[in-house]
């Protein structure tokens, strides 16, 4: 298969504009004849649904929560980037583009990233007009902060609830279209299969989570905005319901899956306390602007933090990276924390934690300023741990947070299945091997408000689609497939709960395909996962029926997919014999322990094609060209 990314030619600043001009348009009167399915109501799916409906298309929007406002985007805290240069500190579209390509460790597509940086400007304008209550200066202008190691202040925020406010903006735009009759909502409905007819995406099969009804839906195009797959690791910062099922089933219908091993680990999460732990809570990265990270110099030092004198502390990030200090990128900060804990210098009961200390900042700026900047985060920390971060340093540890990998899409955000579009975290497009802080919200909204609504028109205008209905054999087959999976899960009636399997799989992935990876470890995991999967299908216990609200059944279906996806994640990691961004292979590092890329052999996006159960998928490579930002070794010293 030849992967054609459809990247426009010409100077990078002109590509999107020219491309937009070349896209075919759907006659306004014809738009209402098209039905578009959007799966997902997060920043990507919500913004796309609203905008497509405004343009006149009939939109059918599916999500598994009870309201579109609860999509996982709601949890994003820190902010959203835009190259507005309101602070006059030298930011520009080009600089945001440059930072994103470099931050992604040269594994993303330049043209996509440039477009993203360009569109970032419109996003802020749109959100302000919708009534998103961004933080303001006294004069009434929008406030910014610097975030995630950026050296300019380009992050817009609404307290520590930026994702919530952006999502409510998109949700309200969406509800306006619901009221106008242009969007039909399908709450508590899960997509369980994609229907492909004559090589084109023509619909989906869903399960109503309340009644259990399995139903087919026909459309002219299908859009997936179903979020990331970090929950494959069991413990992550994602919401409990976040899952890979929609993209995984699309993969099994022929959509290529790109860079599955590019997972991001967030350095500042609250450490695990026990086996019952159900998720990990992120402490916003903005904390690293004022907090200092340290561990005791001596191994096994069990004194309370306040009793360890200054000379016996190791501020290891400041020591190793004097120019970036505590603000090194996420992957670097995470790996260092793991290395220190593996040395036996971790803190807290489990030894898997490092201190994030605000004592100096409180001394320098006063408690009031710190309260103003981080009050809600400090409260959250106190409520979870029972400790007061104003008096004792926070304990933090890295956790799985974001997945840069996802379904492969071209410049138009179309997957390898014509008519199937993938937006937001679910696709692989813009962040390469590592995403910069505050750039996921930007990408989700860029895709949904400003890219997909144009590019999908080009497909619809240029494609003659035959009329089809849910009685088509392809729909019947997909429905049967979904029923079969559901029934099979209910029939096992073994002895172990779904969660116990999920936890075990998560531990394997975290251990062998988490923060650092080795060929040996990955091979071990690749041997173990199929064994565990087999056990799962023999011994899982799912009670209740299929015709009712059955939360164990929902989970079981998702975990079944994680077993398959987990294997692909490891295979991808094993195949990529280099370190880049979040993918750190211990065999490939510089003398001082930094990720060592191999541009000669691995400057490509790895796109995997499903070949059937038990057969190894086929790897296709999309070569990445760097015309503007020339690959260099990242250095944060």
């Amino acid at each position, binding site marked *: 298969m030849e992967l054609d990314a459809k990247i426009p030619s010409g100077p990078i600043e002109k590509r999107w504009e020219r491309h937009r001009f070349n896209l075919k348009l759907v006659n306004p009167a014809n738009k209402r004849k098209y039905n578009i399915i959007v799966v997902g109501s997060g920043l990507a799916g919500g913004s796309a649904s609203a905008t497509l409906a405004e343009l006149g298309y009939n939109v059918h929007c599916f999500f598994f929560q*009870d*309201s*579109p*406002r*609860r999509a*996982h985007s*709601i*949890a994003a805290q820190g902010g959203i980037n835009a190259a*507005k240069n*309101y602070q006059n500190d030298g930011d520009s579209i080009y600089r945001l583009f440059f930072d994103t390509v470099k931050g992604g460790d040269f594994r993303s597509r330049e043209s996509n990233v440039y477009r993203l940086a360009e569109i970032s400007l*419109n996003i802020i*304008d*749109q959100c*302000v*007009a*919708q*009534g998103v*209550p961004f933080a303001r200066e*006294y004069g*009434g202008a*929008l406030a910014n902060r610097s975030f995630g190691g950026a050296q300019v202040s380009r992050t817009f925020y*609404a307290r520590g609830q930026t*994702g*919530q*406010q952006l999502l*409510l903006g998109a*949700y*309200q735009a969406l*509800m306006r279209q*619901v*009221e106008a*009759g242009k*969007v039909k*909502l399908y*709450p508590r409905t899960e997509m369980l299969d994609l229907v492909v007819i004559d090589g084109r995406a023509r619909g989906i099969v869903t399960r109503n989570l309340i009644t259990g009804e399995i139903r087919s839906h026909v459309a002219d195009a299908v859009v997936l905005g179903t979020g990331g797959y970090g929950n494959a690791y069991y413990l992550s910062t994602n*919401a*409990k319901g976040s899952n890979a099922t929609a993209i995984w089933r699309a993969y099994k219908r022929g959509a290529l899956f790109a860079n599955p091993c590019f997972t991001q680990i967030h350095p500042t999460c609250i450490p695990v306390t*026990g086996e*019952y*732990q*159900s*998720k990990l*809570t*992120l402490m916003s990265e903005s904390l690293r602007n004022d907090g200092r990270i340290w561990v005791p110099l001596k191994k096994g030092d069990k004194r309370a933090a306040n009793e360890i004198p200054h000379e016996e502390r190791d501020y290891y990030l400041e020591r190793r990276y004097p120019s970036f200090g505590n603000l090194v990128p996420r992957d670097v900060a995470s790996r260092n924390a793991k290395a220190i804990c593996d040395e036996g210098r971790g803190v807290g009961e489990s030894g898997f934690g490092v201190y994030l200390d605000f004592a100096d900042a409180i001394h320098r700026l006063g408690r009031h300023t710190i309260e103003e900047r981080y009050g809600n985060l400090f409260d*959250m920390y106190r*409520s*979870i*741990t*029972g400790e007061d971060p104003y008096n004792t340093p926070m304990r933090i540890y890295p956790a799985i947070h974001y997945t840069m990998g996802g379904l492969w899409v071209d410049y138009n955000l179309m997957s390898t299945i014509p008519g199937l579009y993938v937006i937001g975290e679910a696709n692989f497009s813009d962040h390469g091997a590592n995403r910069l802080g505050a750039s996921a919200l930007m990408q989700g909204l860029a895709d949904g408000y*400003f890219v997909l609504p144009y590019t999908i028109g080009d497909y619809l205008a240029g494609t003659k689609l035959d009329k089809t209905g849910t009685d088509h054999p392809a729909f019947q087959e997909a429905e049967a497939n979904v029923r079969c999976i559901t029934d099979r899960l209910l029939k096992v009636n073994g*002895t172990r*709960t779904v*969660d*116990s399997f999920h936890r075990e799989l998560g531990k394997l992935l975290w251990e062998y395909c988490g923060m650092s990876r080795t060929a040996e470890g990955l091979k071990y995991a690749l041997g173990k996962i199929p064994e565990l999967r087999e056990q799962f299908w023999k011994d899982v216990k799912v*009670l*209740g029926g299929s015709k*009712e*609200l059955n*939360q*164990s059944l929902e989970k079981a279906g998702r975990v079944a997919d994680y077993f398959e996806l987990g294997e692909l994640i490891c295979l991808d990691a094993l195949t990529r014999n280099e370190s880049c961004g979040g993918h750190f292979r211990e065999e490939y590092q510089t003398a001082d322990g930094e990720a060592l890329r191999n541009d000669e052999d691995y400057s490509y996006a790895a796109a995997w094609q499903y070949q059937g159960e038990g057969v190894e998928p086929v790897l296709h490579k999309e070569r990445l060209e760097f015309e503007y930002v020339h690959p260099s070794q990242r250095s944060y010293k």
Partner: protein
Amino acid sequence: MNVTLHVWRQKQGAGKGRMVRYEARNVSEDMSFLEMLDVVNEELIEKGEEPIAFDHDCREGICGMCGFMINGVAHGPVPGTTVCELHMRHFKDGDDLYIEPWRARAFPVIKDLVVNRSAFDRIIAAGGYISVSTGSAPDGNAIPVPKEKAERAMDAAACIGCGACVAACPNAAAALFTGAKITHLAMLPQGAPERPQRALKMVLQMKEEMFGHCTNIGECEAVCPKQISIEVIARMNHDFIRASWSEREAPYRADQPAGEPSAGGCQ
């Protein structure tokens, strides 16, 4: 610690349910309330009993998916906290905990602790937005917004739509929820053009959804996990009354035939 749970179990489609007693043993004080329920559920499944159904997703107090009554208080005993953020260190060994779903006519129980809150979506659909289509916005800094106003808009916009306000209100009113959205948008210059119609439409929709009438009791504010001030209800009443005098005619008669429930587009 050990605690005794009395949990509302209601089969789907059944008009009635009952309290069932469970013992939660060896509960760690670092567990969240939902993690404690997870452990109880794991044990139930192992014994072949159906687990307790409850809604949840983010587990960090922001999605608004979780929520039930603990000993008669929405989201439990700690102010400003959702049940997913509530930790077991706030309870004592030997406590008896009564766990029940939100109870309100507008929120029918689906199963166990899971209720249907789609009425909230229909209130927003009735007018809880600024009508601005994608692409038509001026520069973000074109209209200055005083910091004070932005902050007050944000205070109201912090609502997570969980429904605790309704569950705690003896009248099962949705005034705090509706008032919060009206206030959020009313505080901003961008929200001004539609301010009167918005208040009219949202308040009328709220009534159609069978929510009760607010009589200023204040229970809503007391349980709100985001501590939204009851002031937003005053603003809602203000905007509604004002709009009723000046603008009522068109929107009220045209698209809200009295008494007929709105379909609102949700399935």
